[in-house]
């Protein structure tokens, strides 16, 4: 009888210890998420934010963190280039021209893929330079029902990601990444659009005002010459009066195209 009680007690104790272990593990995971989230919200530029996400593997004790981002209009690549982001040195950022790969991977469910690394399903999402991850999570980044891309995590530990595990944390994390990413992309697009002439697609006066001082300072410190020319279309007013505004606009577009491409 007493023996039975002792054994029950020991079972209970070991259950309690294992539960406490889970509680501690969860609490430490939560803390790491909070650190990550706070950092993510702090960044003021797209490039800064991407740099942070792509180097966050140590924070989560992972061996790999990467992103796939959809860039249908080439805007993202432009922003990255402008921001001095070196795509070649960051192969974990994979740029996709459309969402075909994601449609094929997630189907209609848009549920994360969590489990063992299967080359056929996973190879397109991972650009690892050392060891192939054994277990992975591919989490869709969605905003307003559209794919922005995926957040890809990998570990050489086959047990780190198992298909039976709860995905609340990583889904929450991908929601935060999605919002932050969309926000930064919108901000970059807004800044960019305010500096472009909508008719000709070349930069506008606002851009010149913003950029001229920087260019002069740069030329000065690099002791490089800086040239500027002022280009006017002869008889433009007459052209406008004679052929109408639509033609005049076409002329502006044609002339702008000449120097935009030279």
């Amino acid at each position, binding site marked *: 009888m007493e023996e039975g009680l002792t054994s029950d007690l020991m079972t209970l104790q070991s259950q309690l210890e294992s539960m406490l272990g889970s509680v501690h593990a969860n609490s430490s995971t939560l803390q790491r998420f909070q650190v990550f989230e706070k950092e993510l919200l702090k960044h003021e530029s797209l490039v800064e934010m991407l740099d942070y996400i792509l180097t966050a593997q140590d924070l989560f004790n992972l061996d790999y963190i990467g992103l796939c981002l959809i860039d249908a209009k080439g805007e993202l690549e432009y922003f990255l280039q402008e921001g001095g982001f070196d795509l070649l040195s960051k192969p974990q950022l994979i740029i996709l021209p459309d969402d075909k790969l994601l449609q094929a991977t997630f189907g209609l469910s848009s549920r994360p893929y969590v489990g063992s690394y299967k080359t056929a399903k996973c190879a397109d999402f991972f650009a690892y330079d050392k060891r192939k991850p054994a277990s992975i999570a591919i989490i869709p980044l969605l905003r307003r029902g559209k794919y922005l891309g995926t957040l890809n995590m990998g570990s050489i530990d086959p047990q780190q990601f198992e298909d039976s595990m709860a995905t609340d944390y990583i889904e929450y994390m991908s929601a935060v990444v999605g919002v932050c990413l969309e926000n930064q992309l919108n901000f970059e697009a807004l800044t960019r659009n305010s500096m472009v002439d909508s008719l000709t697609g070349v930069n506008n006066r606002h851009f010149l005002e913003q950029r001229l001082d920087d260019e002069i300072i740069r030329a000065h410190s690099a002791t490089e*010459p800086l040239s*500027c020319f002022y*280009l006017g279309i*002869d008889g433009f007013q007459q*052209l406008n009066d004679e*052929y109408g505004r639509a033609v005049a606009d076409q002329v502006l577009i044609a002339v702008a195209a000449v120097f935009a491409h030279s």
Partner: protein
Amino acid sequence: MRYTGEIFIVLLANTDQGQAQEIAQSIRQTVKEIQFSAAEFLVTLTISIGIAIYKTSGST
């Protein structure tokens, strides 16, 4: 960049006066070759360009 109306400004980093003149001439030439058809007329365009150089050594 488009400055205002039919006026554009082209800013050329690390370009001296000679190079800027060459670029300006080539743009002028290219624009001249655009045969622009408006209604039933063919319009030939010409442009005028003025150049300014900022030299790090001082005077412009």
